[in-house]
């Protein structure tokens, strides 16, 4: 595991490829190199430098894609597509700006587009209506949660019911720990609207966790 401090001051971790592979040698030589330097080199066509950025951010990108798509295969495709788009768009990106919000914005767009296509497909098939945001209606598992692990699993199942837009907001807030203003820039939505949406999501979960019959003690 490699740790590096990115341009937001956040500590990123990346799994170093094992063995004496070219990737492993490339990464071992890049530990501690800043995102800015890697981006400058990648803009010059250095694919290895970009590969180090992939290693640094693949978990964040994949997690965002998975939070919205809820499918391992789709999330992998979306993550790959996001990095390819970033690679193609490097000429237009200012390397002195933080990479993380940019790549998160790309993956959010990619995943939401995939999800909206999938929703159209499902609605056309008339087999399942996933357009309703049903999250937070009930959390029966919470009442019977014998331990924290079960509770967290139950919360995870609830988040799977969030609409794609709310899933993106939820992940950026609780998975990435970003502020409303930062999320607003990534999702290109007004901070006020996001704050209201987040409040509603949180209230649903609060009622599910602490409502009548759900005895989770703070």
């Amino acid at each position, binding site marked *: 595991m490699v740790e590096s401090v990115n341009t937001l001051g956040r500590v990123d971790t990346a799994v170093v490829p094992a063995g004496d592979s070219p*990737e492993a040698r490339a990464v071992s030589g890049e530990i501690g190199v800043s995102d800015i330097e890697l981006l400058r080199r990648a803009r010059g066509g250095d*694919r290895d430098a*970009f590969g180090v950025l992939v*290693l640094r951010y693949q978990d964040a990108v994949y*997690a965002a894609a998975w939070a919205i798509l809820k499918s391992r295969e789709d999330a992998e495709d979306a993550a790959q597509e996001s990095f390819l788009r970033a690679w193609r768009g490097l000429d237009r990106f200012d390397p002195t700006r933080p990479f993380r919000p940019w790549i998160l914005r790309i993956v959010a767009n990619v995943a939401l587009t995939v999800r909206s296509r999938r929703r159209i497909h499902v609605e056309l098939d008339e087999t399942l209506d996933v357009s309703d945001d049903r999250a937070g209606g009930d959390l029966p598992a919470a009442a019977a949660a014998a331990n924290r692990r079960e509770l967290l699993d139950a919360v*995870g199942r609830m*988040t799977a019911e969030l609409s794609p837009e709310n899933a993106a907001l939820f992940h950026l807030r609780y998975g990435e720990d970003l502020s409303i203003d930062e999320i607003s820039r990534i999702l290109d939505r007004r901070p006020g609207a996001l704050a209201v949406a987040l409040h509603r999501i949180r209230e649903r979960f609060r009622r599910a966790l602490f409502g009548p019959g759900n005895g989770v003690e703070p």
Partner: protein
Amino acid sequence: MKPCPEIQLRLNDLLDAGESKLPVAVRAHLDACPECRAWWEQTRETENVLRESTSADAERKAPASLEGRIRAALEREAVVASERNSKTGSRRRWLAAVAATLVVAAGIATAVFLSRSGSPGRDSTPLRAPIVDEYPETVHPGGGKTTDVAQGTDAFPAVAAPPSLAALPSWGDLILAAAPVEDARQDLRWLTRAVVSNAESAARAFAPADAPPSRTN
């Protein structure tokens, strides 16, 4: 549970702050209002659970195969970009050859047009002007004079014939030259020489003949 709406609104904005950083007025309200206090504590615990649920979710970790997939996709991207650049380059060379051909064709068409219709605007002096006073005149003693046209010399000065148009490259030559060949740059050099040669020929053809000096009685 029904927290006071105004306090709930303010607390929503203060969720990221710790209890100790709440404004004094808000803290005083929480101490005095059990419903708002319960809501505040439940909401903060909900935030903790939601954060914990995302970090504990093993499915959110990128699979080990992802990085290899992305690297392979980047390699393919590079190959495709290289092929695309190569195709664009040959297409540009072909277009340059076509453009050069069109320029040459336009030049030749202009030259042919001018050679057949004169060169308006350059010189209004006719190429063949009869010089009347070259004819012999006889002055009669009783007055008057006659002009013997039959014995006059050829008053029309010789004008050099324009070079034959057959010397210029034919349309077939030009089209063949524009066709994409192995080295389009050679074609371009050839076409450039053809343009210069045509221009020189046209200039010689359109040079006005020197008019003979006019004489007056």
